[in-house]
C-alpha cells in the first residue's frame, strides 16, 4: 500500500495536467473566440490526427529527423567537448568559433542552409544537429575540465595511455554533466524540429500544425500542440530515467557517509 503522501507525489504530474486543461477549458468558454477551441474540442481532434495515415507518416518523418540530428550531434559533441576540456590547444581553437555560433538562433541559419542544401531532410536534420550540439559540447567541456588531475594521475600510474584516460576516466567522471547537456539537447531537438518544419513546409509534425492554422482548423492546431508537448514530456521522462540509472553513483541520496574510520 502506498502512503497518501507518496500517492500524491506520484500523481502530481497528472494532477498538474488536469488542472491546466481545466483552466484552458474555462478560459476558452469565457472568451468564446473562434481561434481558441476548448480543451475538449482539441482532445477530440487527437484521434483524427493519429488515425490518419498521412499524418502519422508526417509525424514519423519528424521523429526520424529528430533522432538522427540528436544522435549525430551527441556522437560528435561529446568527444569534441571532452577533448576541449582536456586540451588547451583544442579549446583555444574551437572556443572562439563556438562563442560566435552560440547566441545565433539556429533557425535563423535555415534560409542559408536551405539555399545550399534545399528544403529536404538534410537541411532540417542539420538545423536540429546544430541546436543540439552546443549545449552538449558545452556541458561535456565543463565536465571534462572539472575532472580531478589526481584521478588522471592515478590512472596514468596504472598504465593507462592518454587516449585510454580520456575514454575510461574523463568520460565516466564527466558523465553526470554530459547527460545534463544531453537532456537540454533533447528538448532543443524537439524545438528545432518544429521550427525547421515551420520554415521549410514540406512534411512533418510542424507542417500539419501550420497547414491547419492556414486553413483555420484551430482544433487540429491545438491538438498538434498537445501531441508535440506530450512527446516532449515522454522523451524527457524516459531520458531522465536512463540518466538517473547511469549516474546513480553520483546521486545525492548517498550523501550521508557511513561513520567509521
Amino acid at each position, binding site marked *: 500500500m502506498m502512503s497518501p503522501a507518496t500517492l500524491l507525489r506520484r500523481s502530481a504530474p497528472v494532477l498538474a495536467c488536469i488542472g491546466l486543461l481545466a483552466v484552458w477549458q474555462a478560459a476558452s468558454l469565457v472568451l468564446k473566440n473562434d481561434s481558441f477551441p476548448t480543451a475538449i474540442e482539441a482532445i477530440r481532434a487527437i484521434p483524427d490526427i493519429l488515425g490518419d495515415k498521412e499524418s502519422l507518416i508526417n509525424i514519423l518523418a519528424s521523429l526520424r529527423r529528430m533522432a538522427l540530428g540528436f544522435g549525430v550531434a551527441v556522437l560528435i559533441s561529446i568527444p569534441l567537448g571532452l577533448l576541449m576540456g582536456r586540451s588547451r590547444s583544442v579549446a583555444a581553437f574551437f572556443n572562439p568559433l563556438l562563442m560566435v555560433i552560440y547566441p545565433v538562433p539556429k533557425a535563423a541559419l535555415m534560409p542559408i542552409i536551405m539555399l545550399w542544401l534545399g528544403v529536404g531532410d538534410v537541411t532540417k536534420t542539420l538545423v536540429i544537429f546544430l541546436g543540439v550540439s552546443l549545449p552538449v559540447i558545452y556541458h561535456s567541456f565543463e565536465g571534462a575540465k572539472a575532472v*580531478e588531475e*589526481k*584521478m588522471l*594521475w*592515478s590512472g*596514468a*600510474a*596504472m*598504465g*593507462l595511455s592518454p587516449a585510454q584516460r580520456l575514454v575510461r*576516466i574523463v568520460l*565516466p*567522471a564527466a*558523465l553526470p554533466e554530459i547527460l545534463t547537456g544531453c537532456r537540454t539537447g533533447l528538448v532543443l531537438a524537439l524545438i528545432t524540429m518544429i521550427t525547421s518544419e515551420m520554415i521549410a513546409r514540406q512534411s512533418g509534425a510542424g507542417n500539419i500544425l501550420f497547414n491547419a492554422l492556414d486553413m483555420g482548423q484551430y482544433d487540429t492546431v491545438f491538438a498538434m500542440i498537445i501531441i508535440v508537448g506530450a512527446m516532449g514530456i515522454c522523451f524527457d521522462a524516459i531520458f531522465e530515467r536512463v540518466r538517473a540509472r547511469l*549516474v546513480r*553513483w*553520483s546521486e545525492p541520496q*548517498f*550523501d550521508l*557517509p*557511513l*561513520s*567509521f*574510520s
Partner: protein
Amino acid sequence: MTAVPARSSEWVRPVTSQEPASAIIEIDHVSQVFQTSARKDHLALSEISLTIEEGAFVSILGPSGCGKSTLLYIVGGFVNPTSGAARMKGQAITRPGPDRGPVFQEFALFPWKTVLGNVMYGPRQQGVRASEAEAQSRALIEMVGLKGYEHFYPKELSGGMKQRVALARTLAYHPEVLLMDEPFGALDAHTRTRLQNDLLNIWERDRKTVLFVTHSVDEAVFLSDKVVMMSKSPGRIREVIDIDLPRPRRRNELLLDPRYQKYVVDIERMFDESDEAGPAL
C-alpha cells in the same frame, strides 16, 4: 644537535640481513621552476639530491610550500623537473608507471566504481584475469579493514575509508615504490592515528619502499627509517635524519620511548631555528 645520530650513508635493515641496501630511487640535482601569475619565476625546488634505498620507509618533512609534494610528483613522473633527473633503478623517470604507485591526500578514487571496482582497476589494466583480480582485490580490501564494503560507492564512505580503498587500489598492482602524498592530511586526528598504525602493520609485512610526504613531525618519526627535512623558498634539503628505533613499532610503546621523544623534539627545534634564521612566511 649531537643527540641526533650522525647521518649514515646506508640504511641498515633491523632484520639480520647483512647485504647492503641498494638504491632504488636516485634524485640527482633536481630543480623545479614554476611560473607564477605575475610572470615571475618561482624556484620551488633547488638542486635536490637524494638516494632512497630499497625497502626503506622515507618521509619528506617540511612546511607547506617547501616543494615536498612536487618532489614526490617528479619521482612519480607526473611532473617533469626543470633541470636534473630522477631515476628508478638507474632508468630516468619520464612518465608515470605501475612500478611507482601514488596515494594522494585527495584519495582520487573513481567515483563511478565500487570499492571492489576501484581496487580491481589496476590489476585488470595489467591484464590479470577478472576472477584472479577479484580474489586478490577482495583479500586486499579485507587487509585494509573494509571487508563487507566491496559493493559500496566512494560517495558512501567516510574519508578514512576512502583512503583505505585508495591504499588497497594502489597496492593491488604491486608497485615497487609507494608514493604517499600527505595521505592522512585530510583526516581527523583519531582516524589519522588508526590509519598510521594500520599502514605500519601492512608495511612491516612486506617492506615495500615508501616515500611519504608529510608536514607532521610525529607522523614522520613514528613511521620512518629516514626523515628528509626540507626548508622552503627555495625548497632545499636541510637535514637527513636516520630514525634508529626498533621495529615492529607499537604506538603505545613508542610514545613513552625517550628516544622517540628526543627525535621529535630535536626535529621540531631544528625547524624553529630555521624559522628564526630565515624569512618567516
